[in-house]
Every structure is written in structure tokens, then in C-alpha cells.
């Protein structure tokens, strides 16, 4: 097929909204103005782990310009939820507004709705919460040690149990212990990634506006408009048809706008007051409260032959989910499926666990679960190369997956390009490869 027939491949294609952006005509959620619009601000937990003894909203209610105050008692439907409940992920563990306990610093407790953002902020600051602080746990291994406090009754050892009763997302391929026994070298290390905030230019937010027909229109910057609509309906016990979500224009998301963090409580506030309600995260909330990429801890053990072939790889990893599940079980499944990286290894063992700590809940960010795996695996490849005294480019070419190889999660490779990519990168970087490595292809392992 010629390039002309392909139409767009190999050509510059116009970006539909680019001129609109350049002229300042793109309408983001908060570019919609309604008369008599109210503003919502959240009173959040000051403690990372505590029993709630008492919540007193009287001063907030009396604060000038405050119109309405919402606690967990005002929630008409669910009190706790998980965004993936509709596809069978559970149990639902996260309070929409905290009631008996708080499990991370910043957890929402009371929503305060005011005539202006400043009135709502001032009112939210006047909510009084009395805490009975509990010991917190902030490290994934400590959380699972048996000595840490259990965050919820769902998981006594603070780690997720998959619906098939497995404690981890698992890969079992070949016999990893046999591989280690036959290997010339054992290379082991521990790797740690950090939580990372997506930090979009536009913070999370929405405007919920009641209509005369009993429906609520929601202008939102969610990355997942139908998902947000369905979850909002489920949380509030509404028919989805009562909600009209308008979205699709997102001022940067990167995974940071899929948690349905603002819509349910804004819709409830709009229903209660009969007025449009805007809930916009401040930059501080976006940085400190909105979910981050999970931090991952990985332990990797490789069995390696003198010629560079990796014959066994065992990985145990811990995803720090923070205080609640959100999408972490999905993240760890992707994480496990990404093992053992773009390499064909005959014996692979992976346990990828989701662990709960008193940190802010983590969630999606570009390459959910995958980036931490690639980070650790590629550092490990360099360590292997150094240990056996082999060029790290050649080590990767030797072990790179080829078409037809069975991967550890039992998918046959069909579109490998790893060998050619490394060869091209070596050419661009001016790194000389021996003739037999230059001759390797994704179709023929025998070249090595």
C-alpha cells in the first residue's frame, strides 16, 4: 500500500482544537458562568490515621456566606465505594466523606458550600473535628509485617486479596528455582520508585447545575466522562439519565483526572441547594490531596549464565496504594503482566502485591504500573551487565524477545521490534556493535 493510499501516515495532520487554543476560544469546564453560582470547599483530615470522635459543623454553618454543609449523614446512597465496583472490583472501601475514621491526611470529611469561594473556604476552616489519633504506617513492608495497625477490616494484613483469593497478581512460568540452580551468577537488588503528582496545569474541578427538568448538568474536566457519570449516579443512588455530563476538554490529565473526586459531592450540593455549585481544587489540593502515581518497591533476583543469557527472574513487588484501593489492583495486574520486561526468560516468578498505608491514595498516571516495572528492570539489566562484564547493549540484544517467543504471561510475541530499536539507538548513539549483534533480527534468535 502506498503512502498516498494510507492518507495520514507520514503526513502532518491538523490538530482539531489547535486554532481554538491559540485564539483562547476553547471552553474548559470553568469557562462556563452561571448566575448565583455557589462554591464548594472541603474540610479535610489533619491526621493520617485517627478515629473521629466528634464533628462540629455549627461554626461553619454560622459563617458568613455559607449556604449548606454536607457530612456523610447527607449522602443518600453509598457511604463507601470503589470506582471499579461495576466491573466486580471490591470490596468497596473508600468513604465518600469520612465518618468513623480517617486514614490519610487530606481525606475529605465535611463539604462546605458558600456564596463565594472565599466564604466556603472560611466556613470549611471553621469545621471542628476531634480526633483520637492512631499509630500510622507509611512503609509497604512495615504495613504487611503483622505488627502494623490494620487500616480496614477488609484486609487484616494491609494487602489486597484478588477475587480469586490470591494475595498477589502472579506470574508462574517455568521453574525459577531450577533456573537459579543452573545459573552461573545470581544478581539481586531492591528498587524503589516515588509517588509522583501528575500536576496538570488545570486542577481537578467541576460545575454541577440543576435544571428545571430534574436533571443535573455537570461540566467536568474528568478524563473519563461516562465513567464519572456512572459512578456519580451509583454513589448518589440516581438513575444515570438524571445526570448530563459534559466533558472532553481537559487541561492536562495524565491519569490524574479519573478518580471521580469532585463530581458526586458537587451534584449532591446542587441537588440540596437548587443552585449551580463549583468545586475546584486549589493548587495545594492538587499537589497534596489528589492521587499520585503509586510508589513501588521491587525486589529482583536474576539467574544469569556466563554468556549473558538470563535463565531465571524472580520479582516480588509492593505497590503502595495509599489508604484505599481505587484502581491499584488493576495497576498491579498491568505491572505483573509487564514482567519480565521485553526479554525472553524461560523461568519467571512474579508476585505483585497491592499494599495499604496511611499515605494519600494513589491512582493512575501515564503507563499505570508499567513505568515502575521498566525502571527497575532496566536498572537490573545494567547491574547484570556490570556483574558479568558484558556490554549492556549486547546483554539486552541477546535477551530481547523475538517473534514467536512465548512470554511469561503466556502471550506469543507477534510484533517484536526490540532488537531493531536497540540497533538503531546504538547507531544514533555511536555505539559499535559486533557484526553478529548487528545481524540479529526480531525474527531469528539463531543469529546470536
Amino acid at each position: 500500500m502506498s503512502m498516498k493510499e494510507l492518507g495520514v501516515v507520514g503526513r502532518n495532520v491538523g490538530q482539531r482544537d489547535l486554532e481554538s487554543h491559540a485564539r483562547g476560544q476553547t471552553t474548559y469546564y470553568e469557562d462556563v458562568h452561571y448566575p448565583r453560582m455557589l462554591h464548594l470547599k472541603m474540610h479535610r483530615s489533619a491526621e493520617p490515621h485517627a478515629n473521629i470522635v466528634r464533628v462540629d459543623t455549627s461554626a461553619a454553618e454560622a459563617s458568613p456566606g455559607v449556604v449548606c454543609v454536607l457530612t456523610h449523614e447527607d449522602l443518600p446512597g453509598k457511604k463507601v465505594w470503589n470506582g471499579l465496583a461495576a466491573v466486580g472490583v471490591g470490596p468497596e472501601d473508600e468513604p465518600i466523606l469520612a465518618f468513623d475514621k480517617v486514614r490519610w491526611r487530606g481525606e475529605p470529611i465535611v463539604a462546605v458550600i458558600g456564596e463565594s469561594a472565599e466564604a466556603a473556604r472560611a466556613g470549611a476552616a471553621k469545621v471542628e473535628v476531634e480526633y483520637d489519633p492512631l499509630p500510622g504506617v507509611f512503609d509497604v513492608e512495615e504495613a504487611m509485617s503483622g505488627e502494623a495497625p490494620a487500616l480496614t477490616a477488609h484486609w487484616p494484613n494491609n494487602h489486597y486479596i484478588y477475587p480469586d483469593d490470591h494475595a498477589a497478581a502472579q506470574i508462574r512460568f517455568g521453574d525459577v528455582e531450577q533456573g537459579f540452580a543452573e545459573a552461573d551468577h545470581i544478581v539481586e537488588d531492591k528498587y524503589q520508585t516515588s509517588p509522583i503528582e501528575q500536576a496538570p496545569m488545570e486542577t481537578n474541578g467541576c460545575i454541577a447545575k440543576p435544571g428545571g427538568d430534574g436533571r443535573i448538568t455537570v461540566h467536568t474536566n474528568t478524563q473519563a466522562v461516562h465513567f464519572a457519570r456512572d459512578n456519580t449516579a451509583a454513589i448518589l443512588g440516581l438513575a444515570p439519565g438524571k445526570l448530563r455530563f459534559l466533558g472532553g476538554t481537559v487541561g492536562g490529565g495524565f491519569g490524574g483526572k479519573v478518580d471521580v473526586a469532585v463530581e458526586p459531592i458537587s451534584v449532591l450540593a446542587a441537588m440540596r441547594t437548587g443552585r449551580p455549585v463549583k468545586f475546584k481544587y486549589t493548587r495545594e489540593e492538587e499537589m497534596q490531596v489528589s492521587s499520585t502515581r503509586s510508589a513501588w518497591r521491587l525486589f529482583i533476583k536474576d539467574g544469569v549464565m556466563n554468556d549473558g543469557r538470563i535463565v531465571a527472574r524472580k520479582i516480588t513487588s509492593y505497590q503502595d496504594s495509599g489508604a484505599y484501593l481505587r484502581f491499584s489492583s488493576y495497576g498491579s495486574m498491568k505491572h505483573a503482566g509487564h514482567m519480565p520486561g521485553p526479554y525472553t526468560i524461560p523461568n519467571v516468578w512474579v508476585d505483585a502485591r497491592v499494599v495499604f498505608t496511611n499515605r494519600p491514595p494513589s491512582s493512575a498516571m501515564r503507563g499505570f504500573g508499567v513505568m515502575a516495572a521498566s525502571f527497575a528492570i532496566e536498572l537490573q539489566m545494567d547491574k547484570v551487565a556490570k556483574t558479568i562484564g558484558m556490554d549492556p547493549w549486547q546483554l539486552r540484544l541477546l535477551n530481547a524477545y523475538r517473534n514467536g517467543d512465548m512470554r511469561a504471561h503466556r502471550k506469543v510475541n507477534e510484533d517484536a521490534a526490540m532488537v531493531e530499536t536497540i540497533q538503531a539507538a546504538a547507531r544514533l548513539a555511536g555505539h559499535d556493535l559486533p557484526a553478529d549483534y548487528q545481524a540479529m533480527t526480531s525474527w531469528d534468535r539463531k543469529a546470536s
Partner: protein
Amino acid sequence: MEDKLIRLTVNGRDEAVIIQPLATLQDVLRDTLELTAVKSGCGQGGCGSCSVLVDGELRLSCLTLAERAEGAEVTTLEGLNATNAIVPLQQAFVENYAAQCGYCTAGMVMAAKALLDRNPAPSRDEIVEGLSGNLCRCTGFAPIVRAVQQAAQALSDTGEEAS
């Protein structure tokens, strides 16, 4: 403190607006005059998405008290399109794919305009310096710099103003 009437010129139009105490220029532009190209990424002067021109100088509207703009001439991104025609600076952003989500774009274009108004032939380093108060999170700095370079080139080729 009481509400106050202020007069200012915005995009060539005389405006009289009632402001609350401590209202920012951003509040007036975005919420009163509904010039929503002005964005609000941080509200604390850290991102540049609210950048406008006040008497020709680049200003962060979120940190500018509305009161201080009394009698001033304010230009927002909307003000570049007095006629419906797209201006060369905007066209350069389009041709260089210098936006993805678009949220930083208004501030970027205004920072670029302020730069080109005072220095019509900036070096690459001067462009980077001129845009240094404006953040982009979609990894778009390189195309944005190229767009400003193209706009400066167009300016020198035609002898016209960039915007």
C-alpha cells in the same frame, strides 16, 4: 472595606466594573467580563497561565489587584483578534503544534507577544527567558519556542507586527 467601582480599558473597550475588596484582575477578566482565555492554573503566580498585558507590560493577573488596574489598558489573548483574522503569532503556534491541552497557551502567547513587542528579533535564549514564567505540562516547550522563532521570523520578513 467596601465594593468599589473601577474603570479600565480592556481589549480596546472602556469598562466600568464593581469589584469586591481584594478582587484580582483575574477575577474581573474571567468572571465579570467573561474573558475566559485568561486561565487560573495556580492562583499564586507560579504557572503563568493567567498572563495578560497591563499598559503593554506582561503581568500575572492572579497577583494583580483589580484596584491597581484602574485606568490601565489591559490586553488579554482575545484582544489580539480585533478582527476575526488569526494573527501571525497565533498562526505560528498552530503551524508548530505548540499546544496539546491548550491550558497554558493563552499565557504563552501573551508572554511571547510581550517579548516580541520589546524585542522583535530575539535569540533562542531570549525566547526561553521570555517564556520562563510560563509552565506547560504536556511537554510542549520545544514546539512553543519554535513557534515564537517562526513568529519573529515572519515579523522580520514582512515588517508587520507579530500580533
